[in-house]
């Protein structure tokens, strides 16, 4: 199962490291990363493979949310199908 992790907020040292660490701890493989600064806002999008994850989706999303709170950024973890449905005909 593939999921999309989005990180939006003020840029800070160590965001990428902490999110990747969170993924590694749950055995979630990071497949692609795209990172941009949009008008001063840090926006990072990661495509991850959760098929071998050691925790269930909800627990992983909560873990990401907690990392986001610690870093002062908003982290969302969503199944990829949502974006496919909304933006692909």
């Amino acid at each position, binding site marked *: 199962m593939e999921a*999309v992790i*989005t990180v*939006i907020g003020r840029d800070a040292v160590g965001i990428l490291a902490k999110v990747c660490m969170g993924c590694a701890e749950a055995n979630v493989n990071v497949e*692609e990363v*795209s990172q*941009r600064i*949009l008008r001063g806002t840090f*926006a990072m*999008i990661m*495509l991850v493979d959760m098929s071998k994850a050691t925790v269930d*989706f*909800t627990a992983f*999303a909560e873990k990401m949310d907690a990392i986001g709170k610690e870093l002062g950024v*908003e982290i*969302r*973890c*969503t*199944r*990829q*199908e*949502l*974006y*496919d*449905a*909304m*933006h692909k*005909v």
Partner: protein
Amino acid sequence: MLDTNDILDTIRMISDENLDVRTVTMGISLLDCADPDPDRACEKIYNKIVDRAKDLVRTADEISATYGMPIVNKRVSVTPIAMLLGCAPDADPVQYAKTLDRAARTVGVNFIGGFSALVHKGFSAGDERLIRSIPRALAETEFVCSSVNVGSTKSGINMDAVKMMGPIVREAAELTKDNMCMGAAKLVVFCNAPEDNPFMAGAFHGPGEPDCVIHVGVSGPGAVRAALAKLPKDASLGEVAELIKRTAFKITRMGQLVGNLASERLGVPFGIVDLSLAPTPAPGDSVANILEEIGLESCGCCGTTATLAMLNDAVKKGGVMASNHVGGLSGAFIPVSEDDGMIRAVERGSLTIEKLEAMTAVCSVGIDMVVIPGETSPAVISALIADEAAIGMVNSKTTAVRVIPAVGKKSGDVLDFGGLLGYAPILDVSTFKPDVFVARGGRIPAPMQALKN
């Protein structure tokens, strides 16, 4: 990989613009629960609802968490209860309402619809008893919603039912006057009621529906308004309509995805997506604000009907391609108390009940969540229902009346229902008397539009 902008677009719509799936509604047929013994009938009703809907709320919450989109309401609609009363001549319909309420509480839904009667051509056994019990049923339950279909394009308008409904609406408000006249807020009088509507208070599970089915109602006025805000003010109306269509497409695809998932996980067939713009009292999540964004100073001014007609049409055109099966009410809703922009328009004096009536000719539903003076006579309420039913009948569309007589309040007072039902100031209604017209009863014949064969 997915386009970064698309992903950010979705996240902005959800987190900043109140985009959500407004309701996942499970329709459950109760036709197999009819029984001459009311106790047995109620036992069957309770067991069937709890059996079918036991996992509804949990499943919807799981989908919401996994896909990162809010699903605001989980609801159940059932077969019009009047159909079960025919074979139980001694039953008290309120016992059935209380059973529905108990079942709703057990499965954790926030409304259950279907304390209803379909009387567009006349009353069958059980219909009149159900209608007369509505005020008491709504006063004595928490989650039950009620609706009565009094007309259709095919059958005309049952004016005997219309005559009955004025006093019933009034009594529903009176019996709940200590609770913001809430009874009347849970009662809808329809013309051309859809059998697969997922939205409350008018949802019921029509007799042509399968045994159990999942319907989804989408929302998203905030997302449409935000998209329009970025368009230059001199963009043509063709461009405006195109942008609305694109946004409606995205919103509806989300609804379709949720419907598919819920149907698969619950093992219940997927019915329809209701392509609606359903506002909430949250600032910005307003259909009135969309109309104002397009270029009106305040909703209700001249130009409102034309703007709304375009909005309604564009929402349907965008949504219809995004969904396998479209149904329900499908269109822009204009409930006053549930829409922050409508409330402000009423307070500014730009929106009157007459303008709202004109608006109902070009969008879904009708005079919805409008607070009228407490002293409004039952005959005036009946005549208001007749007017709306006529608009629906002639235009082959659904119209409805959900007015709340503010019993015990003065002009200028506000009724505050709380939550999604919002609050609203009192709107004045003409006090000239339609009494002789209403008292005539009988049936308004079906219009020429009925003869399509």
